[in-house]
Structures are given as structure tokens and as C-alpha cells.
């Protein structure tokens, strides 16, 4: 039972394993192509409201990816990512509300609007990451949990009302399609998908490279990582910053898509959903974030259809089921199935 391809030294031997005559990296490419085709086809098949739902799921996927960079790859827990999501959404909304150039001309908003958001959230995440350096696991989860619970209150605080709109939040105008043959929903959808594609590519490159290996090393053994000359403090707070940036961009996109921001949409329940999406999709898996985004958007709706009064109980049951069936998330499930298939095919 030999693997019948030439293994060059240094190459990953797993790459030469064949399943139905196709190597695993090839399978991955096929999946990716299939996924992209599906993403392009969806808005021309389904209704406008469903397009909007998929847009939201993609936005959640970006936020979950952000959390995954921090929790999955760097091992720092966060129950407070709703705060960074809110920060991104409010930065976008306040810019559009106060700067005429962004409200009047959506091309400006779409082309450069995300950059200031990214910078604000990167800095905020980095700064929060500094005190977080002293906290491990549970304690960090607690500190970030407190952050998430306090966020809606801070947004409602009357001295900030001039900017945040207080309890009422900020209403935004609906972004108009800048491309003729797409309607508004389709345009927002493609815009979000392009941002998603770029951010996922960025995350993939980050994880594959030197920085990513340092992040993972810190997660697996902080002491050894330090001994290898990795500046753990810098990498940990840096990861916090990048993670907050991803989540913040997702928040800004949600402000654009929903056309409205209000304090009560950023409760700690949102942070908890991100965590749920992360675990269901698969910890430390980049494509898993997409499964997570779909899960946290569609499963609560589905639970509501099962039983209106008990929808959250049904949701809870789904969560328990998900943990039982796929303890390592959707990504882990795919991995297990692939291994089984390889073993059977030999």
C-alpha cells in the first residue's frame, strides 16, 4: 500500500494523497471555484430579501474570522467583540452623518470609507490588547465580557449623544447601486463579497507566513515561543488589533447594509453569537468562518419557525447538538470525513 507518487524532500506528503484520482490541494481548489461560482450566481437566483440575508451572513463571517484570528490562532478568548463591531459601525455611521462628502457621494464611501474604520478599530484593538496581555484565558474572557455588556450603555451615554444619536441611534440613507445593471441589494451584496474575499485572502496570507506561525506558536506554548525570540507582547496585542480591525470592518459593512445603527443591536448577545459561529465553523479554520456566519444568521430564524415562544430554547438545543455532532466544528467534520474516505479508498 504505497503512495504512488514521487515525494520530493520538503514537500508536504499529504499533498500527494489522492481521493478519486484528484490530489487534496486540487480538491481544495475545486471547492474554492465551486464556492465562487455559487457566490456569483446566488443574487441572480434568489429574492431581494434573501440576498440581504446572505449579505448579512457574509458580514458575520468577516466578524467571526476576526475573532478566529484572535481566539483560534492566537489563543486569546474574547466575549467582547460586539464592542469592536459597534465601534466600526458607529465610526462609519458618524462619518456618513457628519461629512457631506461621504453622505452625498456613495462612491467615496464605498471606495475609501472602510480605511478610516480599519485604522480606528486597529488602534482601539491594539490599545485594549495591551492590558489584555496580563490576562489569561478565563480572566480575559471576563474582562471582554464586561466590555461587551458596557458597550450599549456607553453608546447611549448622553454626553456622546451629539455624535451617537443616543438611544435612537443614527439613520443612514440607503446606498444606491453604483453599477447600472445591479439593483441596490445586489450591489451591496457584491460589495460585501469583494471585501470578504480580500479580507479572507489577507487572513490566509497572514496565517501562512512568519507572523501566523508566531501567532500559533504563542497559542501552543508561550514560553517556548518567547525562547525562540518571538516578541509575545507585540504579537499578542498586534493580533488583538488586527482582530478588532476585521470585526470593525464587518460592523461598518453592517451599518451600510442595514442603513441604521442603534445601541441595542450591539449587546453582548452579538459577541456570544460570534463565538458560537466560531466554534460551529471550526476553531482555527478560515473557511469555517463562512459556515459560522451562515449558522448564526439562519439557525435562529429556523428555530423561530419551529416554535415562536421557545425559539431560543430550540436554538440552545441546536447548539448542544452541534457540539455533540461536531466537537471540532464544521471544519473538523470535513477533515474527519476526508480521512475516512481516504482510508476507504485505499
Amino acid at each position, binding site marked *: 500500500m504505497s503512495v504512488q507518487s514521487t515525494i520530493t524532500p520538503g514537500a508536504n506528503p499529504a499533498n500527494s494523497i489522492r481521493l478519486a484520482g484528484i490530489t487534496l490541494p486540487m480538491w481544495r481548489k475545486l471547492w474554492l471555484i465551486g464556492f465562487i461560482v455559487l457566490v456569483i450566481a446566488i443574487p441572480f437566483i434568489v429574492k431581494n430579501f434573501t440576498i440581504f440575508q446572505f449579505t448579512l451572513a457574509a458580514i458575520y463571517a468577516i466578524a467571526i474570522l476576526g475573532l478566529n484570528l484572535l481566539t483560534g490562532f492566537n489563543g486569546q478568548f474574547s466575549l467582547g467583540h460586539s464592542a469592536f463591531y459597534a465601534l466600526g459601525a458607529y465610526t462609519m455611521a458618524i462619518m456618513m452623518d457628519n461629512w457631506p462628502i461621504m453622505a452625498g457621494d456613495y462612491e467615496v464611501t464605498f471606495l475609501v470609507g472602510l480605511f478610516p474604520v480599519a485604522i480606528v478599530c486597529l488602534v482601539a484593538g491594539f490599545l485594549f490588547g495591551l492590558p489584555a496581555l496580563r490576562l489569561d484565558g478565563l480572566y480575559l474572557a471576563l474582562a471582554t465580557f464586561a466590555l461587551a*455588556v458596557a458597550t450599549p450603555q456607553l453608546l447611549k451615554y448622553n454626553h456622546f449623544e451629539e455624535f451617537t444619536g443616543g438611544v435612537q441611534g443614527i439613520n443612514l440613507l440607503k446606498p444606491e447601486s453604483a453599477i447600472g445593471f445591479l439593483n441596490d441589494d445586489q450591489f451591496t451584496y457584491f460589495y460585501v463579497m469583494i471585501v470578504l474575499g480580500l479580507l479572507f485572502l489577507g487572513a490566509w496570507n497572514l496565517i501562512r507566513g512568519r507572523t501566523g506561525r508566531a501567532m500559533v506558536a504563542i497559542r501552543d506554548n508561550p514560553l517556548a515561543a518567547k525562547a525562540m525570540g518571538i516578541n509575545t507582547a507585540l504579537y499578542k496585542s498586534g493580533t488583538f488589533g488586527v482582530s478588532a480591525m476585521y470585526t470593525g470592518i464587518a460592523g461598518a459593512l453592517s451599518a451600510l447594509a442595514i442603513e441604521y445603527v442603534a445601541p441595542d443591536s450591539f449587546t453582548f448577545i452579538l459577541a456570544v453569537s460570534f463565538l458560537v459561529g466560531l466554534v460551529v465553523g471550526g476553531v482555527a479554520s478560515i473557511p469555517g468562518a463562512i459556515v459560522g456566519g451562515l449558522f448564526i444568521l439562519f439557525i435562529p430564524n429556523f428555530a423561530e419557525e419551529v416554535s415562536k*415562544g421557545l425559539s431560543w*430554547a430550540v*436554538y440552545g438545543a441546536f*447548539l448542544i447538538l452541534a457540539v455533540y455532532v461536531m*466537537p471540532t466544528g464544521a471544519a473538523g467534520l470535513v477533515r474527519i470525513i476526508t480521512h475516512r474516505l481516504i482510508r476507504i479508498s485505499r
Partner: protein
Amino acid sequence: MELFFQQVLAGIATGAIYACLALAVVMIYQAIDHFNFAQGEMAMFSTFVAWQLITWGIPYWIAFILTVLISFAAGLAIERVIFAPIRDAPVLSHIIIFIALFSAFNSIAGFIWDFTIKVFPSPFPQESLFGNTLIGSHQLGMVGVTLLMLFLIFAFFKYTPVGLSMRAAAANPDSARLVGINVGWMLALGWGLAAAIGAVGGMMIAPVVFLDPNMMLGILLYGFAGAVVGGLTSPGGAVVGGFLVGVLENLAGTFIPFIGSELKLSFALVIIIVVLLVRPAGLFGRVVVTRV
């Protein structure tokens, strides 16, 4: 100065609430080495059970004892049925189970008893003791119950063989198993105890904040803050921490002008973060040293 004392006393009264919950939080942390985010919702659910029993005409103290027993059994059952099968799963999966329990309890309570606010009776007399007007007798009773509970727990862990086994099972499961302790059942017992303590806490808190399915969320945060201030490894510290948070919160709300009542939750956040930064083990906690 009078205002100051008034606020301190009022702070002690609310602090008793936080101390109750902080105690429950620390208890379960001691028993299962985890933070249970569903703790508050479990306490809320128990309180609803008590309310139902009282509404059926059962006298208060009998309903009280029944509720504690039911909660204990329910906590035990939850551990055995839901938690035991995945005990070896990663921590994140455990957190997801806590979240699932949280949403399930909240939803089921809302479904059975709906979301209207209910009045919960207090076992203590209406008129305040010693003719003072600063602190009600329910608040005093609550302080008393919290202290009594603390004493019982302390005695249980310190002087009974079961208590010792539970501590061993939480601190070092493998060694505990080798000396013949049934670790699985000790954890289940820990869940049962924490649920029972939560039930007592819930029944003490409900007359003050009124009963509804969402009553626990804000309080839980203060409970966490209290537990962190006192130290997660010390039940006594948690009680002191709870009182301290109550007093500080009240004083800050009164004397620092921009905080007011709007930013009280944010104040709890600040307390948590400051304590974690300055003294991560809490005021009374023991610094856990891990061998590398």
C-alpha cells in the same frame, strides 16, 4: 458626611445581592474549574419555581426548602445528562454549552411564566429594625442569609470528607481519581451545590429587583465583578468583594458627577479591568502557580 454613610449603607444593601451571586460564581468555579455563564439564568429559573410553589399556596419556608432541593437535583441532572458526555472537549465547546443553557433557560422561563414583571414575597418583616430608615429589614436579612450560607459552605469544604473530595477533584482530577475519588460525581455534586446556592441567591434578590426572565443579566456582571475583586479562589473573598462593589458603585454614582446612574454598568467594567490589571488573583485569592 450623613449622605456618605447613607450611601455606604445603601451600598451594603445592594452589595448583599452581588455577594450572593459572587458566592455562587466562586462556588461553581471551585467545584468544576469553569465559569458558568448560565449561572444567573439557572438562579432565575429556580426563583420562578419558588414563585410558582408559593402561588400554589405552599408556605414560604417550605417552598424555600423545596426549591433548594429541586435546584440541587436539577443542577446534578444537567451535569450528568448534558455536561458529562463532553467533559474532555475543548474549553470553547464548554462555553458554547453554557451559552446554550443560558438561552434555553431564559426562553423556557419566558414561555412558561411570560415576560411580565412579578412581585416576589420577602420572608422578613416589612417594618425596618431598630427604627432606622437607612437599611430595610429585608436587606439585613439578605446580608444574614449570605453570611450564613458562606459559613455553611466553608464548614462543608473544610470539615467534611465529601467537601475535601470535591476540592481534590477540582484541583487535580487525575490524582484524585488515583486515590479513589469518583471525580465525575464530585463535579456533578458541585453543579448541584452551585445551583442550590444560586437558588437561594435568586430568592433573596427577587423581592428587591422583582422577578422576570431578564432580571439576572446586569446583576450577574456585578456578581462577576465581586468575585474578581475578592478573588476567584476564595468564597469569603467573593462575599467581601460583592459588598465592596456594591458600596463603591453607590459612592461613585453619588459623588462622581459624570457617572450617575447611566454608567453604572460601565463602572463595573472599570472595576473588573482595574482589579485584573493590578492584582489578577483578587484581594483574597491565592496566586495559582503552574509548573511548566
